[in-house]
């Protein structure tokens, strides 16, 4: 096992070839710093129209009538389309097609699209949208997840309000323990808040089809959903990746895709749509709010014996990926610990709140907040050091998870914990002498530091890589080696969505390393030239699309070397390789590669991860492909009079298998920590009566540069067996642990039993008490494990994507 530190590393790094292990400069970096990179909202086509969406103001209502006459008479308006104008299937969805393209009879959340408008100018479209008269019959909304669980509550969908109930029983859930602690925890609804808004442009094509350039995380699953709604074969819907200004899960679901295509096909003109910030909050899913009841039992000497968890997540009005989120949250609910006996019941519910789906961590940050608070509570009950308690119980390679899955991959969890704790804590500086911006609350702190208390908190957590439960989310890549202007050049075709994480850098690094050729171009991603790459989510592209490019590069290299051997009459016993564009035999360069590239060499490969299985009726199964672990220690200062918090330092340790690009890895750790800090201290979408109350960056606060402490990273390399380079994805683990660690530090500083994330000033000065414990709700009367919509004939979407393309 090798270890490499990071944050103290020099800023400038050597980049000899641009291969694996180097901190390469990202190929899209130059256009991004110069302002010339074309994001979805920057696209422009001569003669284009601007699209606009009319959305429901009610969380639950029946549409009585829609009058578009006045709006349609607005000069410059070219089209107003309603549900009846949807050419094909009326509904779509990322996993289950339960969401109307445009609401026809009932609206189920505030912000649900009802009508779409195309006009010659954004202002014309906006004014026309305001002139559309929709008459609603307001229905009783269900805006609380426990209310949704009540069989007496109004049914939001014909089959009820339960999306999925995951039931995991492991060992003997009745096992006795010496010491028990119980706790109730909540996390709020978080927004991904990618800075780039949802945007795209649909261009009608001569073949009657449409080209859509759009911000997304998975082109092929978009096409799978769009084409049936347009009533078209998939090949007539060509989806192209527009520049993506961040994603974090918010672009897994469709946003304006079908709307822009409908308007373009109807008018025969290109149609651009670009949400403003307020509409962006309405137009994408959020992180699920959660409620967690946890009971932990241990022996007197600190070995976990039995854990029971009851978990609810609010899926909002439509399914999105809630069925997968609740599965993840349930499987990780006991934390990265060996727990011989466990019972876990997780329910995802429909409500009339905004739909929730994927966000970085995908169910794991919520339960990490709960299980790590429980471990601290248990340590206190045992009068034991909380780190010592964790070290006694950590998972390791060969351990059995509560799902019965035996961890066969790398799991250097103890190493992660110890490396994190070895990072020096910052020296405590007297508050009184500081620049005010160094006080909790910064310049807004009106005190002199007399009430500042320091606290330290710790959390460890984990996350699955790629899709689980038997899903085959393969990735395809094509590698072509050709001579361009007399130099060997590699073209990489892969539909992996570059959303800012740097996957295009990574794919180029792999091609360079495997082919020994410096000039590598990752071609634009679309659905026409290559098969599905799967989603840029679940920390999966390093393994999956990296794996596909690795396999295609190896195949192309072998084909090229076979050609070179024939041409140069090199015996099979002589080693031949390509190094920096030269053919090397027995260590000596003998020829230029470009002399052997007529015709070009090409290889296409599909990468599949190892197969997994579904849950059985007791929630047991080999459900996850691979795991990645992280730990963070947070040092905070709290002004206990003012309820203000300053995070002084976050010490982060993460195991990554192999650091493919250390600068990008630490960038993910630092950025992921920032989002976890947001959920710990400030980020929460306030939903009252189904309505978002803070849908702007004025009211929904994101961490600024003043809120972020130094993040000191330790990166641990312990290769994952069976995976190219042993590399694991790195995007999510830091987000998972940051929230738990920071809130633990605030508890430590204040002595308050904080059980809701984010922590608000009110919680710290006694104006709001912790949420009280109450009995957990009963399990719903649905079959365990299965997705309820699927049982009632709502078509599943994703599972077809890779079947065809694999």
């Amino acid at each position, binding site marked *: 096992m090798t270890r490499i530190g990071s*944050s103290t590393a020099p*800023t*400038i790094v050597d980049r000899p070839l641009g291969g694996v292990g180097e901190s390469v*400069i*990202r190929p899209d*970096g*130059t*256009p*991004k*710093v*110069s*302002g*010339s990179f*074309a*994001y979805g*909202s*920057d696209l*422009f086509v001569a003669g284009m129209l601007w699209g606009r969406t009319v959305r429901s103001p009610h969380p639950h209502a029946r549409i009585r009538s829609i009058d578009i006459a006045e709006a349609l008479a607005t000069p410059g308006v070219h089209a107003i389309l309603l549900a009846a104008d949807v050419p094909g299937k009326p509904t779509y969805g990322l996993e289950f097609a339960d969401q109307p393209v445009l609401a026809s009879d009932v609206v189920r959340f505030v912000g649900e699209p009802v009508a779409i408008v195309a006009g010659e*100018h954004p*202002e014309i479209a906006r004014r026309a949208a305001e002139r559309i008269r929709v008459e609603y019959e307001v229905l009783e909304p269900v805006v609380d997840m426990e209310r949704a669980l009540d069989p007496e509550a109004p049914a939001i969908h014909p089959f009820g309000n339960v999306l999925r109930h995951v039931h995991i029983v492991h060992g003997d859930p009745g096992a006795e323990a010496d010491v028990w602690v119980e706790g109730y925890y909540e996390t709020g609804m978080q927004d*991904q*808040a*990618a*800075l*780039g*808004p949802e945007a795209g442009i649909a261009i009608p094509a001569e073949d009657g089809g449409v080209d859509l350039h759009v911000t997304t995380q998975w082109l092929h699953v978009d096409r799978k959903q769009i084409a049936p709604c347009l009533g078209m074969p998939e090949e007539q819907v060509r989806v192209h990746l527009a520049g*993506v*200004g*961040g*994603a*974090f899960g918010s672009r897994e679901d469709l946003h304006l895709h079908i709307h822009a295509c409908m308007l373009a096909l109807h008018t025969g003109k290109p149609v651009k749509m*670009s949400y*403003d*910030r307020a509409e962006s909050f309405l137009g994408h899913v959020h992180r699920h709010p959660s409620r967690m009841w946890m009971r932990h039992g241990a022996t007197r000497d600190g070995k976990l014996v039995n854990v029971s968890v009851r978990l609810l997540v609010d899926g909002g009005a439509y399914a999105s990926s809630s069925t997968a989120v609740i599965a993840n949250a349930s499987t990780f609910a006991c934390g990265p610990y060996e727990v011989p006996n466990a019972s876990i019941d997780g329910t995802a519910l429909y409500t009339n709140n905004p739909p929730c789906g994927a966000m970085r961590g995908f169910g794991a940050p919520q339960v990490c907040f709960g299980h790590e608070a429980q471990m601290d509570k248990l340590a206190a009950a045992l009068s034991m050091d909380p780190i010592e308690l964790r070290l006694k119980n950590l998972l390791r390679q060969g351990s059995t998870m509560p799902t019965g899955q035996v961890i066969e991959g790398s799991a250097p969890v103890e190493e992660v914990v110890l490396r994190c704790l070895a990072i020096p804590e910052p020296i405590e500086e007297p508050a009184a002498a500081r*620049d005010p*911006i*160094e006080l909790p609350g910064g310049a807004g702190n009106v005190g002199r530091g007399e009430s500042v208390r320091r606290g330290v908190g710790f959390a460890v957590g984990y996350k699955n890589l790629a899709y689980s439960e038997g899903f085959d989310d393969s990735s395809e890549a094509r590698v072509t080696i050709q001579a361009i202007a007399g130099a060997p050049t590699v073209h990489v075709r892969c539909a992996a969505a570059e*959303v*800012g*994480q*740097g996957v295009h850098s990574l794919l180029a690094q792999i091609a360079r390393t495997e082919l020994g050729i410096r000039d590598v171009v990752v071609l634009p991603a679309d659905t026409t030239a290559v098969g599905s790459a799967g989603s840029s989510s679940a920390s999966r592209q390093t393994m999956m699309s990296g794996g596909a490019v690795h396999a295609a590069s190896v195949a192309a290299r072998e084909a090229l070397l076979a050609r070179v051997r024939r041409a140069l009459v090199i015996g099979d016993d002589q080693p031949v390789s390509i190094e920096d564009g030269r053919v090397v035999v027995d260590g000596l360069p003998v020829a230029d590669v470009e002399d052997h590239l007529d015709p070009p060499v090409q290889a296409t490969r599909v990468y599949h991860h190892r197969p997994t299985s579904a849950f059985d009726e007791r929630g047991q199964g080999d459900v996850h492909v691979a795991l990645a672990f992280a730990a963070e220690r947070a040092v905070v200062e709290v002004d206990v009079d003012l309820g203000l918090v300053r995070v002084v330092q976050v010490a982060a340790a993460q195991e990554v298998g192999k650091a493919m690009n250390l*600068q*990008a890895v*630490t*960038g993910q750790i*630092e*950025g*992921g*920590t*920032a989002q976890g800090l947001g959920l710990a201290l400030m980020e929460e979408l306030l939903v009252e009566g189904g309505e978002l109350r803070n849908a*702007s*960056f*004025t009211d929904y606060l994101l*961490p*600024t*540069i*003043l809120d*972020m402490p*130094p*993040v000191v990273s330790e990166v641990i390399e312990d290769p994952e067996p069976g995976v190219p380079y042993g590399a694991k994805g790195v995007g999510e683990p830091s987000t998972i642990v940051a929230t738990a660690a920071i809130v633990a530090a605030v508890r430590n500083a204040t002595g308050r039993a904080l059980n809701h994330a984010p922590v608000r000033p009110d919680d710290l000065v006694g104006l709001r008490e912790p949420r009280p414990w109450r009995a957990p709700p009963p399990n719903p009367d649905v079959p365990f494990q299965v997705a309820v919509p699927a049982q009632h004939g709502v078509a599943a979407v994703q599972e077809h994507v890779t079947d065809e393309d694999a």
Partner: protein
Amino acid sequence: MLVRAIVNGREREADVWEGSSLLAMLRDELELPGSKNACEQGECGSCSVWLDGDLVCSCLVLAAQANNREVKTVEGLGTVDELDAVQQAFLEAGAVQCGFCTPGLVVTVSDLLASDPHPSVATVREALSGNLCRCTGYQKILDAVALAAARIGGSG
């Protein structure tokens, strides 16, 4: 209404809607989309430009207010073929992920270093507190500023 302004050293004019922001004029009328539209209410700094040499959020300035004035945007700094020191530092320090905040940060950092070539970390943090970045956690942005300051200071 017709707005005339010197934009990045060139005389430009645009026929805009009366309520148009300077940001919308730059992006939709003058084909200068480098200034970004992330919040459009002055919270994120992605649309930062100079108006007569002052750093402003172009989303909060009416296009009409730019009439007969000088505007400089990120496109008025280095080019793809010849990045300036701040842009180059962002690239090398890994301060760019999705990049949507980057043009605004490049402009803001350039403004800071023009008035204070050797800013302290606290000064940098205060100066950049109006620029939101959702990807990086800001650490590599601080690295980039330090790198740019060292290079500019070194050469000047």
